[in-house]
Protein backbone atom coordinates (compact mmCIF):
# COMPACT_ATOMS: atom_id res chain seq x y z
CA UNK A 1 0.00 0.00 0.00
CA UNK A 2 2.99 2.25 0.59
CA UNK A 3 3.36 3.25 -3.06
CA UNK A 4 -0.06 4.86 -3.37
CA UNK A 5 0.46 8.62 -3.48
CA UNK A 6 -3.04 9.61 -2.41
CA UNK A 7 -2.88 7.37 0.63
CA UNK A 8 0.47 8.78 1.68
CA UNK A 9 -0.62 12.40 1.36
CA UNK A 10 -3.93 11.88 3.12
CA UNK A 11 -2.31 9.85 5.88
CA UNK A 12 0.40 12.44 6.42
CA UNK A 13 -2.36 15.00 6.87
CA UNK A 14 -4.65 12.80 9.00
CA UNK A 15 -2.33 11.03 11.42
CA UNK A 16 -1.31 14.13 13.41
CA UNK A 17 -4.95 15.18 13.63
CA UNK A 18 -6.02 11.75 14.88
CA UNK A 19 -3.33 11.75 17.54
CA UNK A 20 -4.14 15.32 18.58
CA UNK A 21 -7.81 14.35 18.86
CA UNK A 22 -6.76 11.39 21.01
CA UNK A 23 -4.92 13.72 23.37
CA UNK A 24 -7.93 16.07 23.43
CA UNK A 25 -10.23 13.23 24.49
CA UNK A 26 -7.68 12.20 27.08
CA UNK A 27 -7.32 15.54 28.81
CA UNK A 28 -10.92 16.71 28.53
CA UNK A 29 -12.23 13.40 29.83
CA UNK A 30 -13.23 14.77 33.21
CA UNK A 31 -15.41 17.55 31.69
CA UNK A 32 -16.89 16.04 28.56
CA UNK A 33 -17.43 12.57 27.16
CA UNK A 34 -14.11 10.84 26.87
CA UNK A 35 -11.40 9.39 29.01
CA UNK A 36 -8.46 7.09 28.96
CA UNK A 37 -9.94 4.16 27.07
CA UNK A 38 -11.38 6.12 24.16
CA UNK A 39 -8.29 8.31 23.96
CA UNK A 40 -5.94 5.35 23.99
CA UNK A 41 -7.84 3.61 21.20
CA UNK A 42 -7.95 6.74 19.02
CA UNK A 43 -4.26 7.42 19.61
CA UNK A 44 -3.35 3.83 18.77
CA UNK A 45 -5.55 4.02 15.65
CA UNK A 46 -3.33 6.84 14.41
CA UNK A 47 -0.25 4.70 14.90
CA UNK A 48 -1.89 1.69 13.23
CA UNK A 49 -2.79 3.84 10.20
CA UNK A 50 0.87 4.84 10.03
CA UNK A 51 1.91 1.18 10.24
CA UNK A 52 -0.55 0.21 7.50
CA UNK A 53 0.76 2.80 5.07
CA UNK A 54 4.45 3.13 5.89
CA UNK A 55 5.02 -0.47 6.91
CA UNK A 56 5.31 -2.17 10.26
CA UNK A 57 9.10 -1.86 10.39
CA UNK A 58 8.98 1.91 10.13
CA UNK A 59 6.20 2.06 12.70
CA UNK A 60 8.26 -0.02 15.13
CA UNK A 61 11.06 2.53 14.80
CA UNK A 62 8.70 5.05 16.40
CA UNK A 63 8.05 2.77 19.37
CA UNK A 64 9.60 -0.65 19.79
CA UNK A 65 7.65 -3.70 20.87
CA UNK A 66 9.60 -3.91 24.11
CA UNK A 67 8.78 -0.27 24.89
CA UNK A 68 5.08 -0.94 24.30
CA UNK A 69 5.23 -3.88 26.65
CA UNK A 70 6.87 -1.86 29.41
CA UNK A 71 4.55 1.12 28.93
CA UNK A 72 1.50 -1.16 29.11
CA UNK A 73 2.64 -2.45 32.50
CA UNK A 74 3.66 1.05 33.60
CA UNK A 75 0.16 2.42 32.91
CA UNK A 76 -1.38 -0.25 35.15
CA UNK A 77 1.17 0.47 37.83
CA UNK A 78 0.48 4.24 37.64
CA UNK A 79 -3.20 3.48 38.22
CA UNK A 80 -2.33 1.24 41.17
CA UNK A 81 0.13 3.82 42.52
CA UNK A 82 -2.51 6.56 42.66
CA UNK A 83 -4.89 4.09 44.29
CA UNK A 84 -2.31 3.16 46.90
CA UNK A 85 -1.42 6.82 47.48
CA UNK A 86 -4.96 7.31 48.73
CA UNK A 87 -4.48 4.44 51.18
CA UNK A 88 -1.08 5.76 52.28
CA UNK A 89 -2.56 9.19 53.02
CA UNK A 90 -5.24 7.78 55.22
CA UNK A 91 -8.15 7.05 52.88
CA UNK A 92 -9.50 4.06 50.97
CA UNK A 93 -8.11 2.51 47.81
CA UNK A 94 -8.66 4.91 44.88
CA UNK A 95 -9.74 7.59 47.38
CA UNK A 96 -8.64 10.93 45.89
CA UNK A 97 -9.81 13.28 48.64
CA UNK A 98 -6.70 12.94 50.86
CA UNK A 99 -4.39 13.83 47.96
CA UNK A 100 -4.94 17.62 48.10
CA UNK A 101 -6.60 19.92 50.63
CA UNK A 102 -9.27 21.17 48.20
CA UNK A 103 -11.74 18.35 47.43
CA UNK A 104 -12.38 19.46 43.83
CA UNK A 105 -8.72 19.81 42.98
CA UNK A 106 -8.03 16.45 44.64
CA UNK A 107 -10.69 14.64 42.58
CA UNK A 108 -9.43 16.31 39.42
CA UNK A 109 -5.80 15.42 40.06
CA UNK A 110 -6.72 11.85 40.94
CA UNK A 111 -8.94 11.19 37.95
CA UNK A 112 -6.55 12.81 35.46
CA UNK A 113 -3.62 10.72 36.69
CA UNK A 114 -5.63 7.52 36.76
CA UNK A 115 -7.04 8.14 33.29
CA UNK A 116 -3.57 8.91 32.00
CA UNK A 117 -2.47 5.49 33.22
CA UNK A 118 -5.50 3.92 31.51
CA UNK A 119 -4.79 5.83 28.30
CA UNK A 120 -1.15 4.74 28.15
CA UNK A 121 -2.03 1.10 28.80
CA UNK A 122 -4.90 0.99 26.31
CA UNK A 123 -2.91 2.71 23.55
CA UNK A 124 0.10 0.43 23.94
CA UNK A 125 -1.98 -2.72 24.31
CA UNK A 126 -3.95 -1.97 21.13
CA UNK A 127 -0.64 -1.31 19.32
CA UNK A 128 0.76 -4.55 20.73
CA UNK A 129 -2.25 -6.59 19.59
CA UNK A 130 -1.88 -5.13 16.09
CA UNK A 131 1.89 -5.71 16.04
CA UNK A 132 1.59 -9.30 17.14
CA UNK A 133 -1.02 -10.17 14.53
CA UNK A 134 0.87 -8.34 11.77
CA UNK A 135 4.21 -9.95 12.70
CA UNK A 136 2.65 -13.38 12.91
CA UNK A 137 1.43 -13.07 9.36
CA UNK A 138 4.81 -12.08 7.91
CA UNK A 139 6.58 -14.84 9.87
CA UNK A 140 4.02 -17.38 8.75
CA UNK A 141 4.39 -16.36 5.11
CA UNK A 142 8.15 -16.76 5.43
CA UNK A 143 7.67 -20.30 6.73
CA UNK A 144 5.33 -21.11 3.84
CA UNK A 145 7.85 -19.77 1.30
CA UNK A 146 10.56 -21.96 2.81
CA UNK A 147 8.27 -24.97 2.58
CA UNK A 148 7.37 -24.41 -1.07
CA UNK A 149 10.91 -23.92 -2.44
CA UNK A 150 13.50 -25.56 -0.24
Amino acid at each position, binding site marked *: MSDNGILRVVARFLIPLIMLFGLYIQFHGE*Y*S*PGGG*FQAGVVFAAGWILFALIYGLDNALKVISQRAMYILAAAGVLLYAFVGLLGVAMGGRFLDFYPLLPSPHAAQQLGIITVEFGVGVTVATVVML*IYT*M*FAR*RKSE*WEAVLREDSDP
Partner: protein
Amino acid sequence: MSTILSFFNYWVVVALMMIGFYCVIARGNMVKKIMGLNLFQTSVFILFVTSGKVSGGSTPILREGVEIYSNPLPHVIVLTAIVVGVAITSVGLALAVRIQEAYGTIEDDHLGDDDDDERLALEDRQRR
Protein backbone atom coordinates in the same frame (compact mmCIF):
# COMPACT_ATOMS: atom_id res chain seq x y z
CA MET B 1 -47.79 -1.42 15.36
CA SER B 2 -47.29 0.62 18.50
CA THR B 3 -45.92 -2.41 20.33
CA ILE B 4 -43.29 -2.72 17.68
CA LEU B 5 -42.32 0.95 17.71
CA SER B 6 -42.41 1.65 21.43
CA PHE B 7 -40.26 -1.37 22.15
CA PHE B 8 -38.10 -0.93 19.08
CA ASN B 9 -34.82 -1.18 21.00
CA TYR B 10 -35.87 -4.39 22.68
CA TRP B 11 -36.84 -5.95 19.35
CA VAL B 12 -33.38 -5.05 18.05
CA VAL B 13 -31.84 -6.60 21.15
CA VAL B 14 -33.74 -9.84 20.68
CA ALA B 15 -32.98 -10.03 16.96
CA LEU B 16 -29.27 -9.35 17.41
CA MET B 17 -29.05 -11.75 20.32
CA MET B 18 -30.60 -14.57 18.33
CA ILE B 19 -28.49 -13.91 15.23
CA GLY B 20 -25.34 -13.83 17.33
CA PHE B 21 -26.16 -16.91 19.35
CA TYR B 22 -27.12 -18.82 16.21
CA CYS B 23 -23.77 -17.93 14.65
CA VAL B 24 -21.89 -19.16 17.71
CA ILE B 25 -23.70 -22.49 17.73
CA ALA B 26 -24.25 -23.27 14.08
CA ARG B 27 -21.11 -22.02 12.36
CA GLY B 28 -18.05 -24.23 12.25
CA ASN B 29 -15.65 -21.49 11.20
CA MET B 30 -13.92 -20.07 14.25
CA VAL B 31 -13.75 -16.50 12.97
CA LYS B 32 -17.49 -16.61 12.32
CA LYS B 33 -18.02 -17.97 15.80
CA ILE B 34 -16.14 -14.99 17.22
CA MET B 35 -18.19 -12.60 15.09
CA GLY B 36 -21.33 -14.23 16.42
CA LEU B 37 -20.04 -13.82 19.94
CA ASN B 38 -19.47 -10.11 19.27
CA LEU B 39 -23.03 -9.67 18.00
CA PHE B 40 -24.34 -11.53 21.01
CA GLN B 41 -22.49 -9.21 23.37
CA THR B 42 -23.49 -6.10 21.43
CA SER B 43 -27.15 -6.96 21.94
CA VAL B 44 -26.59 -6.90 25.71
CA PHE B 45 -24.89 -3.51 25.43
CA ILE B 46 -27.97 -2.12 23.69
CA LEU B 47 -30.15 -3.59 26.41
CA PHE B 48 -28.09 -1.77 29.04
CA VAL B 49 -28.01 1.55 27.20
CA THR B 50 -31.75 1.40 26.61
CA SER B 51 -32.36 1.05 30.32
CA GLY B 52 -30.46 4.28 30.97
CA LYS B 53 -32.55 6.50 28.69
CA VAL B 54 -34.78 8.96 30.51
CA SER B 55 -37.51 10.27 28.21
CA GLY B 56 -36.94 13.95 27.52
CA GLY B 57 -33.55 13.84 29.18
CA SER B 58 -30.42 15.30 27.62
CA THR B 59 -26.85 14.04 27.68
CA PRO B 60 -25.55 13.69 31.22
CA ILE B 61 -23.06 16.58 31.11
CA LEU B 62 -23.12 19.24 33.82
CA ARG B 63 -24.14 22.61 32.30
CA GLU B 64 -26.61 25.46 32.69
CA GLY B 65 -30.30 24.95 32.05
CA VAL B 66 -30.37 21.16 32.05
CA GLU B 67 -32.65 19.59 34.62
CA ILE B 68 -33.47 16.16 33.24
CA TYR B 69 -30.66 14.02 31.93
CA SER B 70 -30.21 10.38 31.06
CA ASN B 71 -28.63 7.96 33.50
CA PRO B 72 -24.89 7.85 32.76
CA LEU B 73 -24.19 4.66 34.73
CA PRO B 74 -25.28 2.18 32.00
CA HIS B 75 -22.93 3.92 29.58
CA VAL B 76 -20.01 3.39 31.93
CA ILE B 77 -21.01 -0.23 32.41
CA VAL B 78 -21.28 -0.75 28.67
CA LEU B 79 -17.87 0.87 28.16
CA THR B 80 -16.36 -1.65 30.57
CA ALA B 81 -18.22 -4.49 28.88
CA ILE B 82 -16.95 -3.29 25.47
CA VAL B 83 -13.38 -3.43 26.79
CA VAL B 84 -14.03 -6.98 27.93
CA GLY B 85 -15.47 -7.76 24.49
CA VAL B 86 -12.38 -6.38 22.75
CA ALA B 87 -10.16 -8.50 24.96
CA ILE B 88 -12.19 -11.63 24.23
CA THR B 89 -12.13 -10.95 20.50
CA SER B 90 -8.38 -10.52 20.43
CA VAL B 91 -7.71 -13.61 22.54
CA GLY B 92 -10.13 -15.60 20.39
CA LEU B 93 -8.56 -14.43 17.14
CA ALA B 94 -5.07 -15.08 18.48
CA LEU B 95 -6.12 -18.65 19.30
CA ALA B 96 -7.68 -19.00 15.85
CA VAL B 97 -4.41 -17.89 14.23
CA ARG B 98 -2.44 -20.42 16.23
CA ILE B 99 -4.97 -23.17 15.47
CA GLN B 100 -4.62 -22.34 11.78
CA GLU B 101 -0.84 -22.71 12.11
CA ALA B 102 -1.04 -25.94 14.09
CA TYR B 103 -3.85 -27.71 12.22
CA GLY B 104 -3.98 -25.92 8.86
CA THR B 105 -7.69 -25.18 9.20
CA ILE B 106 -10.07 -23.24 11.40
CA GLU B 107 -13.19 -25.21 10.53
CA ASP B 108 -14.22 -26.72 13.83
CA ASP B 109 -15.91 -29.73 12.20
CA HIS B 110 -12.67 -30.91 10.60
CA LEU B 111 -10.83 -31.01 13.90
CA GLY B 112 -11.00 -34.05 16.12
CA ASP B 113 -9.48 -35.17 19.39
CA ASP B 114 -7.94 -38.26 17.83
CA ASP B 115 -4.37 -37.01 18.05
CA ASP B 116 -1.96 -39.48 19.52
CA ASP B 117 -0.10 -38.55 22.69
CA GLU B 118 3.17 -40.20 21.83
CA ARG B 119 3.44 -38.76 18.34
CA LEU B 120 2.73 -35.26 19.61
CA ALA B 121 5.23 -35.55 22.42
CA LEU B 122 7.80 -36.67 19.87
CA GLU B 123 7.06 -33.74 17.54
CA ASP B 124 7.26 -31.45 20.51
CA ARG B 125 10.70 -32.72 21.43
CA GLN B 126 11.91 -32.35 17.85
CA ARG B 127 10.71 -28.75 17.71
CA ARG B 128 12.84 -27.92 20.73
